[in-house]
């Protein structure tokens, strides 16, 4: 009995102990811990990515998805020449650049606001973060109502302000038809994307803003700097590394996003608000041309890769300084 008791509380013996010792080796333990992550990356990132490259250089369709015929860069040449692709590329760049511009300005302002204590700050923070937590479908529904051709509250406010409607600055009609027009449609996508992306960017920028010691601002004030000099010469240089990270995150999310355009405008009217990811989906999945869809998806990859590497290096360098 006394032996049993000892084995119960003492270190494990026999086979269990040998397995334990084997698992305890740094090499074994390391691979055991890393294993799931490595498997995940290979199976769900690496493999689909390579498959996309293979597809883009084949003649695969939904009906015949085999990779038996190698066509080189023919798919790329073909899709690039279409007007729809050119429009989608242009719109992708406009939407991304527009969203980034708005997000950067607003995130900097919001972080400046949120770094200070004020009444109701917690409630404000919660509401502020909400768009990030909402599913994209819900976002789209909210904004479709905002921008509806008949029931838009924005139109109503504009009419009340005498900007819209008979005698208004923007013409006799009582509706803007935000989503029924090329440029208003793009602007609508930009505003909605900004609304969704602002919380993430603000959190990134706010973290950087909070790490600036208050004494630095006080020193600048005593040194004679006004609000704008402090913003441009003190605050923004200190935020730079994190601003670059925010640009990168927001930019990659926006440029790869199709659901918002799909839900808001369906790329229309015509292809006027078409963006690359949605066009790739329409072409590759809906249209059945897997190869061309893959080519459209991969078109921006080399540019994004180079841009990301350069951005991360710049962020790293400015943090070093």
């Amino acid at each position, binding site marked *: 009995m006394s032996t049993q008791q000892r084995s119960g509380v003492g270190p494990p013996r026999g086979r269990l102990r040998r397995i334990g010792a084997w698992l305890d080796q740094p090499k074994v333990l390391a691979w055991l811990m890393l294993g799931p992550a490595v498997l995940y990356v290979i199976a769900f990132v690496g493999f689909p990515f390579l498959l996309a490259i293979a597809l883009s250089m084949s003649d695969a369709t939904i009906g015949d998805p085999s990779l038996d015929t190698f066509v080189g860069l023919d798919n790329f040449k073909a899709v690039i020449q279409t007007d729809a692709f050119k429009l989608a590329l242009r719109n992708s760049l406009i939407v991304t650049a527009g969203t980034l511009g708005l997000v950067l300005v607003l995130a900097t302002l919001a972080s400046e606001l949120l770094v200070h204590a004020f009444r109701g700050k917690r409630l404000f923070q919660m509401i502020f973060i909400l768009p990030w937590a909402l599913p994209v479908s819900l976002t789209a529904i909210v904004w479709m109502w905002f921008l509806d051709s008949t029931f838009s509250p924005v139109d109503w406010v504009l009419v009340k302000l005498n900007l819209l409607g008979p005698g208004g600055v923007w013409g006799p009609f009582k509706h803007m038809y935000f989503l029924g027009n090329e440029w208003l449609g793009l602007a609508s996508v930009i505003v909605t994307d900004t609304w969704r992306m602002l919380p993430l960017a603000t959190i990134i920028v706010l973290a950087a803003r909070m790490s600036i*010691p208050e*004494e630095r601002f*006080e020193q600048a*004030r*005593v*040194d004679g700097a006004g609000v704008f000099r402090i913003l441009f010469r003190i605050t923004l*240089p*200190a935020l*730079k590394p994190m601003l670059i990270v925010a640009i990168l995150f927001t930019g990659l999310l926006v440029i790869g996003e199709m659901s918002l355009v799909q839900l808001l405008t369906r790329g229309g009217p015509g292809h006027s608000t078409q963006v690359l990811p949605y066009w790739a989906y329409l072409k590759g999945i809906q249209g059945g041309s897997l190869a061309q869809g893959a080519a459209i998806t991969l078109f921006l990859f080399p540019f994004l890769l180079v841009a990301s590497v350069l951005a991360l290096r710049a962020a790293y360098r400015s943090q070093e*300084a």
Partner: protein
Amino acid sequence: MTVLTLRALEKHYGSIKAVDHVDLQLESGEFMAILGPSGSGKSTLMRLVAGLEPPTSGDIIVDGQSVVNVPPQHRNVAMVFQSFALYPHMTVRDNILFPLVSRKVPKQEHEARLQKATSMLGVENLLDRRPSRLSGGQQQRVALARALVRDPELFVFDEPLSALDAQIRSRARAELRELHDQTRITTLYVTHDQVEAMGLADRVAVINEGRLHQVGTPQELYNDPADLFVAGFIGNPPMNLIPLDETMVAGLRPEHMLVDPEEDVPDLLIDLAVTIEHIEYLGSEWLAHGQARAVTSNGQQLHVIARLPASAHPGLVSGQECRMVGQRKDVCLFDRASGKRQVQAEVPA
């Protein structure tokens, strides 16, 4: 000429009076230290002068003009923070030029002013470096150069030496005083370190719980403390404070405490039977710590310290009984209730 006048200055945070009715004057070219323990309100006082906080009431007058409603960027007050607060993304040159650029000083003056300030502080060869590549001492000099470059009316220093290593601190202290003697810029120097305050300043203002307790030269503070707080704060170790009766407390510097006097000492006011607790050897002196027997009216034990020259071993050991005495001429008397200093004539014989 008076450069800075504080008149009935108050700063309250809720019910806490961080600065409580402070009146103070700084004459032109004067180096004044604000000395107090942490939380005494000295930093708040300095922030009020720099304009970083608005006072609750009272007035701040610089060169005859009230600056209470003037924002810091329009006050001609230069400040050096404890952390030096150098701008990390700028070179030393841009750091030092920042006050000139911000105050829109004509560009043609920049080079000459930069030259003057940097040569005075010996940082001419650091101009193209970033602050992160500087040692603590170099950072302090750059911060001083940045404060100096714009010819301020008033310097405000917030413990500028406390971020430095102990080895270079005493040299930096000497350099700071030399810099002041060269420039004669009126200086307000905030510190909790009495060695800094006494060693650097022409006059020291002792502050505690928001109130000024005494303003005077280092000698005045040491020899004639105005109240019990100053007596117990200035000096290391501070004065022995020995209750005489219900109303009086006697203050006696440790160096005036005589241990086992061999001859008859005339006019004794203090005569204590003491048990030695321990003695300390400090190189230049001995300190004898002891417990006086049954002196205070409320039955508390009384701790006393005597300072003895290092030249001879005092021949004391722990647990030894001895007599410690003090002469009337060396004693400062304080009113027990108010803490205020009593004039010698009022003392009962």
